[in-house]
Structures are given as structure tokens and as C-alpha cells.
């Protein structure tokens, strides 16, 4: 059962387990709890949109599925565009369906430097296997495709010439139709987001979903949480409801979870740091048509630089995405990109960086997120801009547009060296879609927020199950890591 605005007839509800959030973490926890026979309510701030309501209209879908239409900034120099899902299914509805096992070196780092016991690769492997089966994950070759994913084939071509290693991306999909709509809700239901997997499972097992419902505060006393006060909209009026529970599971994501904990005065460490990946894009006009919109976001990645935690792949292509990425370049370039739309391609690098953010929750209803740009990240960004240009030129690029304010198009690597030699951070277009580690798991309550079982320090009946509990960022898309950690946390919870 899914309740939406207008469906709430009571002002008080009760359940055994209340799960806040329905993204990668909350949906897994909710499904596992409901399947164990518990009475579960899952609260989601965003609305419920079934697959049949998804269209190809980027503006319309972004307004529905993203927090603040995807234009919330991470305050700092430069401002970073921050995209967060806000709908039933959370970030899994709008991500690129690439599911990656946590890199072994990251898990070793967590064991050795953060004291995480029982979270080694071999410990988590059982969960990776289950998740990949649940979400139909497989890495398929696109090399024989004649009309789709031609931009990714160009990426392979360029990387091969440079002798750089590429890998096909393990994707969670069933019969993908290559509508390139991963980021605006898959209109065919092919993408195995939690909206079509764990959430239906949870509902089937009896869980109730409260959508359009924002938790304002967690009520607690003496180390025991007992209810939440949440806001719904009935008619034109905002109204508060109260949900009592025996146990609370928080999975609001790496920004909202620490914000809620701070607002509810439940943790002093929550949100003191937030780690994120930086994404930088380079756009090219190629010498032949690739019709990049016929395909999917990233079926292939360059793994040559995985030791540096940097991954290069193609990016979502729609007229809106292409032109928005060129917004800093002036209208002539935008007009040209539209004219040569079928020959345009976008490359994106996802980078693990040293810059860290903080979450300020003291004023107002919403968190303020700011970060300090770490100068060493500039070298990493420059290196990756150059790598993307190298790939594009090897793949037949005629002209490349850099993610730099007021920069001119370049047509050779010599032009590039000149263009990026003296760039400053505030000239660069950076975005982020992966935020994590704002309530890190750890063995010591002084520098962590949850213990090794995912339990909030200082509280008897509160678990955290989302990206916030990862000890650090991981370099890759974190969905499978989140899901595996949640499986482990829930296993420990059931065992106890």
C-alpha cells in the first residue's frame, strides 16, 4: 500500500519498524524487515511516480524526481551542482544503473584504518551475489551494436589507441531499450531501480509506504527513540502526523540523515564531514554521427586510472543535458551543438577527491552544505580533463568544449595545454551525484556516528542504513556498496 497526499486519514500511526527513506538503503532494509514478518512503515519525502508515468521530458521529470529540480548547490569555490533523487525509490530511480562491487582496496582501507571488522571483501561477497541476482546485474558487450551506444564505442576506440584498459559496466537491467532515460526515470521499467524491485517486495510482504511525507523530528528520551513528527500536505494545508514505532531505521541519504539527527539532537558528530565524488565533463563534436541519445548512460568505463579512483565514461545524452553542460560557453556554442546534435558526445570522469563538505543544520528546515576546495584536487581535475580530450581526439573529435568558464573550443592537445595551464578552481564546471560518509561507521564513538552494527551511538533502537554510514567515499557509484552494507547490518540486527 502506498499512501499519497490526500490519502492520510489519521494523524497517528504505529508500526514495529519505521524506515525513513526508500532509496538504495531504505528499500533494502524495508523489504528485509517486512519479509521477516514485521509490521513496517516506510516514509518517503518525495512523491510516488510509477514507471507508466515516466516520459522523455527532461524538465518535467527532473522537477518531479529530483530535490530542488537538481539545482541545489554545494556552496564553495566553485559552486558545485548537486543532484539528489527525491521520490519513492530515491536515487536509484535517477542513477545510471551501473552496479559496482566495492573496490577491494577501499574495503581494506576501512578494515585497517577505520576498524571495520566483518566488512572485508570476502565477508560482503555473499551480499554482492544476492544483490546482483535480485537486480539482474550483468556486464554485456556493446561492440556488435550497429545503431546504439556508438558514443561508448568511440570511447573504446579512443582508449584502445591509447592502450588504456576499458571494462563493460555491470548494469542492473532487464531488456534495456536504450532510451537513454536512466537519469529521468526509466520509462520501460528495464532499469532495476528499487521502485521495481525491493519496494514491490516490501509491499508484497505487507509494508506500507507513506509518500509525500517529510520527517521533521525524531522524538526520543533516555537513549530510546519512540516516534517521529512528520509533515504531509492535505488539500492546500500542511499537517503534522505522528508515527510511533518500536525500532527506527534511518536511510534519508548522506545529507538528510545527518540533518535529521542534528535537528533531533541525537548526534554531535553527524554531518561534521561529508565526502563526495566530483564529476567533470568534456563535450566533443565528432567527425561522424554517433546519435549518442540512442544508448544508455555508461555501458563502458575506462579503468586505466582506477588506482587513482578515477573512472571515465560516456554521460547521459539529451538536448537538455548537452546544452546545459555548455551553459558557460555562450549561445553560439549552444546553437552549434544543437546543429550537430547527432555528432555530439559527452565524456564524464568520476573522481574520488580530497575536498570535503560539511552540513549545517542549525537554521531553517533544510540543511546548508558547503565545502572547501582542496588545492590538490585541481591537479586531478586537470589530469582527467586532459585524459578525456585524449580519448576524444583519438576517436575523431573535431572540436572539444572544456568544462571551463568562457573557454574557447579546442581542436588539438596543444590548445588544451594552453587552456588548462593556468585555470583556477572557480573557473571549472563541477557536479556531484554521489555523497556519502557523513555519519561514518566506526569502532570509536569519538570519531564515528554508528557502531559496527549500524546502530547509532547512544541510542538503543536506531539503525542507520544508507550512504551516510560508509566510512569514506569509494570512487565508484556507491549503490551496490550501500546495499551490501545494509544487508550486513540487517543480518547482524536479525542475529542479535
Amino acid at each position, binding site marked *: 500500500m502506498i499512501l499519497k497526499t490526500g490519502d492520510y486519514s489519521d494523524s497517528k500511526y504505529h508500526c514495529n519498524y519505521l524506515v525513513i527513506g526508500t532509496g538504495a538503503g531504505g528499500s533494502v532494509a524495508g523489504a528485509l524487515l517486512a519479509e521477516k514478518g514485521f509490521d513496517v512503515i516506510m516514509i518517503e519525502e518525495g512523491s510516488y511516480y510509477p514507471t507508466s508515468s515516466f516520459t522523455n521530458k527532461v*524538465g518535467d521529470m527532473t522537477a518531479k524526481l529530483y530535490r*530542488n529540480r537538481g539545482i541545489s548547490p554545494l556552496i564553495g569555490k566553485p559552486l558545485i551542482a548537486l543532484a539528489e533523487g527525491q521520490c519513492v525509490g530515491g536515487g536509484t530511480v535517477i542513477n545510471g544503473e551501473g552496479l559496482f562491487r566495492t573496490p577491494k582496496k577501499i574495503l581494506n582501507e576501512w578494515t585497517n584504518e577505520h576498524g571495520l571488522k566483518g566488512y572485508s571483501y570476502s565477508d560482503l561477497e555473499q551480499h554482492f551475489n544476492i544483490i546482483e541476482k535480485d537486480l539482474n546485474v550483468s556486464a554485456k558487450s556493446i561492440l556488435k551494436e550497429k545503431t546504439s551506444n556508438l558514443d561508448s564505442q568511440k570511447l573504446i576506440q579512443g582508449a584502445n589507441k591509447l592502450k588504456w584498459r576499458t571494462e563493460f559496466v555491470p548494469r542492473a537491467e532487464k531488456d534495456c531499450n536504450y532510451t537513454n532515460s536512466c537519469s529521468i526515470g526509466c520509462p520501460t521499467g528495464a532499469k532495476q531501480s528499487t521502485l521495481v524491485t525491493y519496494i514491490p517486495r516490501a509491499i508484497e510482504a505487507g509494508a506500507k509506504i507513506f509518500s509525500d511525507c517529510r520527517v521533521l523530528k525524531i522524538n526520543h528520551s533516555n537513549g530510546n527513540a519512540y516516534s517521529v513528527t512528520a509533515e504531509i500536505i492535505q488539500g492546500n494545508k500542511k499537517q503534522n502526523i505522528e508515527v510511533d514505532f518500536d525500532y527506527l531505521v534511518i536511510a534519508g541519504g548522506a545529507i538528510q540523515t545527518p540533518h535529521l539527527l542534528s535537528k533531533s539532537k541525537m548526534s554531535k558528530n553527524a554531518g561534521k564531514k561529508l565526502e563526495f565524488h566530483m564529476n567533470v565533463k568534456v563535450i566533443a563534436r565528432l567527425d561522424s554521427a554517433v546519435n549518442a541519445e540512442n544508448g544508455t548512460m555508461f555501458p563502458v568505463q575506462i579503468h586505466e586510472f582506477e588506482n587513482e579512483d578515477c573512472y571515465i565514461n560516456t554521460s547521459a545524452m539529451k*538536448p537538455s543535458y548537452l546544452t546545459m553542460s555548455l551553459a558557460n560557453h555562450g549561445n553560439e556554442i549552444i546553437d552549434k551543438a*544543437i546543429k550537430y546534435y547527432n555528432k555530439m558526445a559527452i565524456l564524464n570522469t568520476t573522481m574520488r577527491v580530497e575536498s570535503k563538505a560539511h552540513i549545517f543544520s542549525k537554521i531553517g528546515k533544510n540543511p546548508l552544505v558547503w565545502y572547501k576546495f582542496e588545492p590538490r584536487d585541481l591537479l586531478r581535475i586537470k589530469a582527467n580533463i586532459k585524459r578525456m580530450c585524449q580519448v576524444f581526439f583519438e576517436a575523431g573529435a573535431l572540436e572539444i568544449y572544456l568544462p571551463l568558464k568562457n573557454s574557447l573550443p579546442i581542436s588539438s592537445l596543444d590548445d588544451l595545454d594552453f587552456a588548462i595551464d593556468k585555470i583556477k578552481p572557480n573557473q571549472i564546471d563541477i557536479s556531484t551525484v554521489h555523497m556519502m560518509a557523513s555519519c561514518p561507521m566506526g569502532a570509536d564513538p569519538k570519531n564515528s556516528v554508528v557502531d559496527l552494527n549500524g546502530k547509532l551511538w547512544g541510542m538503543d533502537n536506531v539503525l542507520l542504513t544508507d550512504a551516510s554510514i560508509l566510512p569514506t567515499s569509494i570512487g565508484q557509484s556507491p549503490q551496490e556498496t550501500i546495499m551490501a552494507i545494509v544487508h550486513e547490518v540487517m543480518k547482524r540486527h536479525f542475529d542479535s
Partner: protein
Amino acid sequence: MWLSTINIITSYNLNEIKIYKEKKSNYLDIESDICAFVVEGINNLPAFYSLPLKLYVILLRLLMLRARNVSKLYKLKIPFLHILTKLIKSLILLRLFDVLPISNTKINLNLIQK
């Protein structure tokens, strides 16, 4: 006052895009639709982002009265104007292609939707 100023700046930036100028006559109410999308986008931002933005827009309006038109405003190189412009332009481009299809990709959702 901020609302009308945002509409003026949105309209100015929209009319600088060639494809829009060429095709706008085929579409009814497209400009007001896009202006509404931009305004809603700014209104939906949390207060600590949207309030300073609105104040800044009001200041711009005062300057605009003196500069008489938006193109002159852009020539003045006013601090932070490029940030506001990027925000407005991003929202314009996000919405524009919902109503002005340019893609060659023909995806018939009715056929492939399960």
C-alpha cells in the same frame, strides 16, 4: 519586483537562443511556460539560497532601471551576475527541449512501455 525581473532576464536569455527564435512561433505560450518553470525552480530552493537570490534580483532591477535594458546590464559586468545567469539558463535549457523537440531519436514510449 523580483518576479518581473526574473521574467525579464529569462525572456532575454531565451531569445538569445537561435533555435528558440526560429521555432517559437509554432508553439503557444512557450515563453510563459519556461518563465514559470524558472520562477518555480527558484521558489523551490531552500530559503537560504532563494532569499539572497531574490534580494540580488531586486538590486539588479534597480540597476536595470538605470541601465534601461538587460543587454546593457550584461555589459556592466556586475558581480555574481554570471552565477544568476547560469542558474536561469540551466533552468531554461532544462525546460526548453520538453516543448521544442530537436532530437532525431524517435522513441515511441507506447510501443515499448511494458
